[in-house]
């Protein structure tokens, strides 16, 4: 029972961490808070469902298609919706508030399109739905795969951001956007790239989620909320923080659901969230500045 819960918690936490990394990149690099983030996740989940059920292709191959699609979609959204706001606000708190309002609108547009296309029913598909024995506990293979994918994608992102010049430049923009032009970085272009990269991660998260969870056209909000909690817990713009906070959130949810009551999971999540906000307002790994 304990091992099963632990593994289930890690699987869920891995997904949360993956999903939160995209949001923290969008916020850290592009300085926009994207409330339609969860809708990108669900759209990709529907994409994986279609690819699996109509084409009979593995969702893993779907990733190859859907991650670039998420990138492209977010790239366009930034150009159409965010850039005018960036130009108008000249950065700072105004941009954060404007982006929250604009993406709040976008949330309902995407959700409406998905409701029309797929209806409001819960959807899932059967992929690698057989048990695997790990340390005496039986875990569904699709959950295991979801965890491995989260690790691989998260690890790849980490290498991209720390080992390449392009990734280092994105981190530079997130720590000191005003200094980026001094080394020849086009900060506006970097912001758009960061936003699009976050969209690609959201799409990956959606594919991973769809492999082992049921979802509906209106589930996006839940993922945005959870990602937001993880981002704030881990410290805004902090990848390692998002990773740890995601795992903690997944473990807490699963343990509370198994040992206390499934009805209390959300309450427990918010309790921890509030405790961290009171105890460490800049997040578990955030720095005490600003």
């Amino acid at each position, binding site marked *: 029972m304990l091992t099963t819960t632990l593994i289930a918690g890690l699987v869920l936490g891995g997904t949360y961490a993956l999903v939160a990394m995209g949001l923290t990149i969008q916020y850290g690099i592009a300085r926009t808070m994207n409330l339609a983030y969860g809708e990108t996740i669900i759209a990709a989940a529907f994409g994986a469902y279609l690819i699996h059920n109509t084409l009979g292709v593995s969702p893993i191959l779907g990733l190859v298609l859907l991650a670039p699609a998420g990138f492209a979609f977010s790239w366009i959204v930034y150009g159409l919706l965010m850039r005018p706001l960036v130009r108008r606000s000249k950065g700072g708190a105004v941009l954060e508030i404007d982006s929250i309002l604009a993406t709040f609108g976008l949330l309902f547009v995407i959700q409406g399109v998905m409701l029309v296309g797929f209806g409001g029913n819960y959807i899932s598909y059967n992929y690698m739905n057989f048990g695997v024995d790990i340390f005496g506990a039986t875990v569904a293979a699709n959950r295991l795969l979801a965890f491995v994918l989260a690790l691989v994608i998260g690890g790849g992102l980490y290498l991209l951001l720390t080992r390449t010049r392009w990734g280092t430049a994105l981190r530079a923009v997130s720590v000191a956007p005003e*200094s980026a032009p001094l080394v020849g970085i086009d900060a506006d272009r970097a912001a758009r790239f960061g936003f699009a990269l976050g969209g690609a991660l959201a799409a990956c998260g959606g594919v991973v989620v769809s492999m082992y969870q049921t979802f509906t056209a209106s589930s996006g909000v839940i993922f945005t909320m959870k990602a937001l909690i993880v981002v704030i817990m881990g410290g805004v713009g902090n990848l390692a923080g998002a990773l740890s906070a995601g795992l903690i959130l997944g473990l807490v949810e699963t343990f509370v659901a198994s040992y206390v009551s499934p009805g209390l999971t959300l309450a427990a999540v918010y309790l921890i969230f509030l405790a961290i906000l009171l105890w460490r307002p800049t997040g578990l790994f955030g720095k005490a500045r600003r």
Partner: protein
Amino acid sequence: MLEVENLAVDYGKHVALHCVSLAMQEGETVVILGANGAGKSTLLKSIAGLVRPREGATVDFSSSNIVGLPAHEVLERGIALVPEGRGIFPDLTVAENLFLGAYARRARKDEAANLAMVLDLFPRLAERRQQTVATMSGGEQQMVAIGRALMSAPKLLMLDEPSLGLAPVLVGELFQSLARIGRSGVSLLIVEQNVRISLSIADRGYLLEAGRIVGHGPADRLADDPAVQHAFLGAAADN
């Protein structure tokens, strides 16, 4: 090599620069002297493309007009700026800051040679490559800022108040390094309040007062000029 004409900048109603003109030859070291608020930083920022000047200005660099180009394009043309406050990436390591210094396309070809040159110029940076810049002293951070700018292989290096906040001993070392950079063939345009030491390494100087150029001449003549001594050296000596 650099020819600035009719450069005027205003921030809303406040006019920071009135019709400034100046010229530099290749390989020259030129210092711009002026009190706080004279418009020195604005002058460097508008050459670097960080501040947009009023219509009618020309900034000719290596025979092309670069006025109005965004800052990242200006850097590609070969002008690097070390701003006041240094503008480095505090959360990144020394190595990462230098790595990003060579982000520009123009910097890639000679990146290894430029890195060797920077580490030779500032051996301290070689010892501290993996250190986060925010945890370093002011003098070391200034080395990172200058080293990072040199990584972009600039033809013209502009420095805004490089001595600010440094101990007198370090200021001496810093200007020795700058003189070495100047001798290597890089043109230097330095804005300074520390008149004596900046004139000691400069070929020529300009005096900037309330947004206007009010005088210019060879560095040794400016150092002896009673007006300069009265306006700047006197004040510097009092400090």
